[in-house]
């Protein structure tokens, strides 16, 4: 045990008892009155299982509670805690400090999203583009009026899109995308992957409608298949696959 009282012993409530620590560099920026981003450094103890989000919350608890960060579920489900961690977009709650293999951990707000403050970014555009591709089943009848009371689907038909329905709208893909880096009107990998999710759903009849929406000057054609979206997705959605399969329909490679 440590000779001098550690933070953990002082507060009595934190889970950290480790003597290992890392330097956590947190980007601070308030667009209301700061002209540029600056960094604040904190020494944070950690265990093998400590996540970056827990380290940030440790800072808020003991050093500076004004650090702005968005989170909710702490288990890679709500999609709130995306940020740039050591240069790449990742979920803070799904990234362990020990897996980063570095004594210094730098956290910054996600790229390609306007900053609210510090690590919290605006999601309006992502929600708008997601909404734009009509993320719901399109068909004339409803489950209430059909005889069967439900739209039947075979397990094989389910496999066609279930992967893409894992999306938690965290925006990491949009942050990694090279097109998004210069074109904020681009519909983006998140929305395109969801367009595929519905087009590939055997219950959906809105394929032509959706393909028309993404056949736009800032639509699917701006994707160059760099694949960075798929490399950062924390849920295995593989937006790049969905986008190319979608483009396969439009180019006549698939029907």
């Amino acid at each position, binding site marked *: 045990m440590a000779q001098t009282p550690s933070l953990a012993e002082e507060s009595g409530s934190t889970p950290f008892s480790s003597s290992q620590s890392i330097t956590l560099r947190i980007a601070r920026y308030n667009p209301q009155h700061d002209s540029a981003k600056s960094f604040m450094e904190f020494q944070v103890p950690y265990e093998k299982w400590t996540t970056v989000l827990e380290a940030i919350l440790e800072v808020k608890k003991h050093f500076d509670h004004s650090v702005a960060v968005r989170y909710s579920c702490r288990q890679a489900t709500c999609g709130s805690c995306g940020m740039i961690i050591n240069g790449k977009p990742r979920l803070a709650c799904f990234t362990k400090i020990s897996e980063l293999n570095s004594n210094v951990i730098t956290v910054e707000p996600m790229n390609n999203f306007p900053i609210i403050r510090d690590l919290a970014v605006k999601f309006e555009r992502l929600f708008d583009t997601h909404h734009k591709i009509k993320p719901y089943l399109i068909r004339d009848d409803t489950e209430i009026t059909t005889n069967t009371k439900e739209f039947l689907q075979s397990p094989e038909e389910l496999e066609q899109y279930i992967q893409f329905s894992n999306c938690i709208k965290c925006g990491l893909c949009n942050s*990694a995308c090279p097109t998004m880096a210069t074109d904020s009107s681009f519909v983006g990998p998140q929305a395109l992957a969801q367009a595929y999710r519905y087009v590939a759903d055997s219950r959906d009849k809105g394929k032509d409608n959706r393909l028309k929406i993404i056949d736009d000057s800032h639509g699917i054609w701006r994707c160059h298949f760099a694949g960075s979206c798929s490399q950062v997705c924390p849920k295995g959605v593989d937006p790049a696959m969905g986008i190319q399969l979608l483009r396969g329909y439009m180019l006549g490679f698939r029907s």
Partner: protein
Amino acid sequence: MTNQDENKEGIGGMINPRRYGIERVAYLLMRLSGLGLLAYFIGHIYETSTILKGQIGWNEFLALTQTNAGHAILAIVIAMCVFHTVNGIRVMLGHGGVGVGKPARPDYPYIPASQNIRHKMGIYSAIILAAIAMMYGLAVMFGE
């Protein structure tokens, strides 16, 4: 809106090849070689138009390509041409949904099926063929 408001990563982020594997390197090389070939194409039209000034003009301009710098530029053009063509075929197939994998329930650690060995082999082949063609070109041009 200004760049700061949007917090876009900008051209620096777009061209940074270090973070997202060989696929992002291929993306960068494809753009650079496309633009390089476009520049060469324009230069080539200008070069061949010197024939309008008669044989002397033509020969004068052609002499430029016989210098060491001219040879080096042509070698780079050969490499760009081979990479752009081979990788272009890979990209066109990928864009059509060929070889990008099939939808399946993903499992941790979520290796994306679209970033698969077939496409990686395509990229490495394009780079290796470009290097071989460039070396062959250098051997012919400097080997006289």
